[in-house]
């Protein structure tokens, strides 16, 4: 499957899962609101340009926003993590050639610890910015901190399960192939 088709399917799939599964389940608590849709941005190929990345993130965020009737609320954090992703990848990818030899970030291409550092940092940034925007509109500091950390914990758990269940096959690409 080509990378383009794969990513289009992922886009639709993540939006549907977020809207019809994660936003529908009765919450454990009203301060816990798990999000995994932004994994789409994390899973985009290494070679995606910065501007393309940000535009795709904007589209993803807006798409979710149109379903939850909050234009801009999810788009803003998505653009932010898309902007930060290249910096983090530059810092975290240690050995030479990862970006050339593998297609996209995953446990296999980056190694467990660097990949999960990437996930944790971007999830934290996403949640913090999202709930900050929410808190600015109608709630206080307490709401912001508690909701960010509770949701972060549950989201990370879900992401870990997703990574373990759906192992993405990464081919080691060489110049000869």
């Amino acid at each position, binding site marked *: 499957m080509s990378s383009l088709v794969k990513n289009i399917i992922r886009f639709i799939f993540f939006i549907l899962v977020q809207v*019809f599964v994660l936003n*529908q389940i009765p919450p454990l608590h009203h301060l816990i609101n798990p999000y995994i849709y932004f994994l789409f941005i994390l899973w985009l190929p290494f070679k995606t340009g910065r*501007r393309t990345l940000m535009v795709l993130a*904007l589209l993803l965020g807006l798409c979710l926003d*149109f379903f939850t009737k909050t*234009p801009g609320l999810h788009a803003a954090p998505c653009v932010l993590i898309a902007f930060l992703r290249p910096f983090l990848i530059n810092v975290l990818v240690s050995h030479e050639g990862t970006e050339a030899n593998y297609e996209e970030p995953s446990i296999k291409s980056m190694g467990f610890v660097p990949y999960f550092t990437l996930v944790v940092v971007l999830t934290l940034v996403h949640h913090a910015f999202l709930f900050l925007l929410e808190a600015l509109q109608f709630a206080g500091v307490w709401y912001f901190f508690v909701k960010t950390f509770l949701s972060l914990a549950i989201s990370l758990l879900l992401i870990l399960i997703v990574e373990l269940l759906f192992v993405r096959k990464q081919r080691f690409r060489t110049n000869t192939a």
Partner: protein
Amino acid sequence: MRNIVLFIRRYFNFLFFLILQGFCLYMLFNYNRFHQAVFMNVANEYTGRVFKQFNDVEYYFKLKKTNDSLVKANERLYNKLKLDFEIPDTINKFVVDSIKIDSLEKYRKFLYMQAKVIGNSVTLPNNYIQLSRGIQQGVTKDLGVLDANSAVVGTVIDVSSNYSVVMSLMHRQSNVSAKLKKSGQEGSVTWDGQPNEVILKGIPKSIVVKKGDSVVTSGFTDRFPYGLLIGTVTDVIIEKSSNSVTLKLKTAADFYNIQFVNIINNLKKEEPQQLLKKVKKTNE
């Protein structure tokens, strides 16, 4: 000039990021004022279709609960039929004046329109319900919405040609004028974030409120007639610093299981509105 161009080229990614962020935040903070500005009407038409597809499946799983609530609604309506009431003494008749005078004629004030719920959220910080009934089917903005058993659900805030979006009671900006049924004390119902729970503020401490008291619409706004159930009191919180109590209410409508709603159209709302406008003008 050359430096400016160089600066822009060097920091183009960052500037692009700032522009996109600005765009997002502009939309976010302007949404409540200009719905049209952010293509929401167009988007509702498309999300409506997706929600409809999903609801076609989901609806089957909720048929039992929907059926039960409709049976209850029927029971309530049967009890209101004229057939249920008899005049005890047949010799004493009610006399109806047969001369038609305009002021005695009945006219319709509220028109109920049923609508299917196709999208519903309960877990978000601001919850909306999407209905498959729009401008073409007679829905306009600012109409009240009830569930099948006449419990208040929310207010229509946006309509496209075939779908409409309802701000449910579980929305931070929702504000419904309400009364305690027993004492008639008026207050306003808002939401503080707990699912299926709303709060009623502005009740003086002198009023005796017990758990289980019902709270109904006040009839002061043109959206809802008097006496529709909003919820029942579950907790009374006495605020030490003020002269009023805050009541926690369990909503009468169960937002987790809502498949059909009734939209109430107040056909006589123009006249009082114009009167109010006139009064405001003379005061200015």
